[in-house]
């Protein structure tokens, strides 16, 4: 359950930035290739905010699909599967999106 560590990390950052202002919503961006399950993250977030200024805050998850660029055929392909393979069959690919794991914003006050 690495989502618990990740949720704690989010809450720690948000609380530092919020100071003593209550936090109502936190928005995070989660790429499809990060091995982070949004439902598990929401569950862990609800536990991690207890007793903090973000207690009761809602976690909004922005999903980012995976995209890879094939070095053989040169095209970009969307991929939501962790097996990195271009539709042309080549495994010589670069991931250009889908590994995002970011805290986008928070609503405070």
């Amino acid at each position: 359950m690495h989502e618990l560590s990740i949720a704690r990390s989010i809450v720690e950052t948000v609380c530092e930035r919020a100071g003593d202002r209550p936090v109502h919503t936190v928005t995070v961006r989660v790429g499809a290739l990060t091995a982070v399950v949004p439902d598990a993250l929401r569950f862990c977030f609800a536990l991690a905010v207890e007793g903090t200024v973000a207690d009761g805050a809602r976690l909004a998850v922005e999903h980012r699909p995976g995209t890879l660029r094939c070095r053989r055929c040169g095209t970009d392909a969307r991929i939501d599967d962790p097996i990195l393979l271009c539709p042309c069959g080549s495994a010589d690919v670069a991931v250009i999106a889908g590994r995002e794991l970011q805290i986008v914003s928070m609503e405070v006050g």
Partner: protein
Amino acid sequence: MCATCGCGDHHHQHPATETVTLEEKVLAKNDALAERVRNRLAERGIIAVNLMSSPGSGKTTLLERTIRELDGRRPIAVVEGDQETPLDADRIRRTGCAVVQVNTGAGCHLDAAMMNDALDALDPATGSLLFVENVGNLICPALFDLGEGDKVVIISVTEGTDKPLKYPYMFRAADLVLINKIDLLPYVDFDLDACRRHIAAVNPGARVLTLSATRGDNLASWYAWLAGPTDRRGSAWAGGARPDTGPHRTSYGTPAAPGRPGHSSRSVR
């Protein structure tokens, strides 16, 4: 009705909320600390190898034998990660090697803060080979940079051939994959070629070695890999997610002065 507090009428003011843009990596703190660990290791010429696998794949057995057989070639130290108990650290300690046990409690992986604390407690000698035995788990440890030089994933032939496909994040993170317990191949239903294909499917850049830590098959290849420079091993991170800031270690084919680090062993939690 007031949507903010649910009160019946609106004779009080609600403070306006404000949206604060953060645009910050979730693991920024871990990654910054991992970078500090990486620098700390590089300054002292310490090579750190992070061993990851499911429980029971033979990490501790491989370590015990590696420590005994590389004895005197270079100081070796070990960070032992487990949820509970000092049992694995006790096994390593019996080889005479410096070891520190890190119990993660409810945690399922080591992180950079634990690695940093373990380094404080262990204080490995300059030029050491530092093994990190991560918590037995094929999912969570893949996400956390410890500041190590290499990630080694171990799979044993008593597990399923299809593990690389079932746990692709872990196998994709690997610089080297060890297929262990090949002495048991006659007795188990494990397709070595298929396993290699599955590893290549999730990580075309990974090197793969087959070995038996108990019988000793092919351990020379493992030791040769440990002695080789990181930048000749090929990057498993062709996708570009891995920072290029890691140290390019130099060969340790020429052994440093013989000797071991102190036989100290402490526990951090």
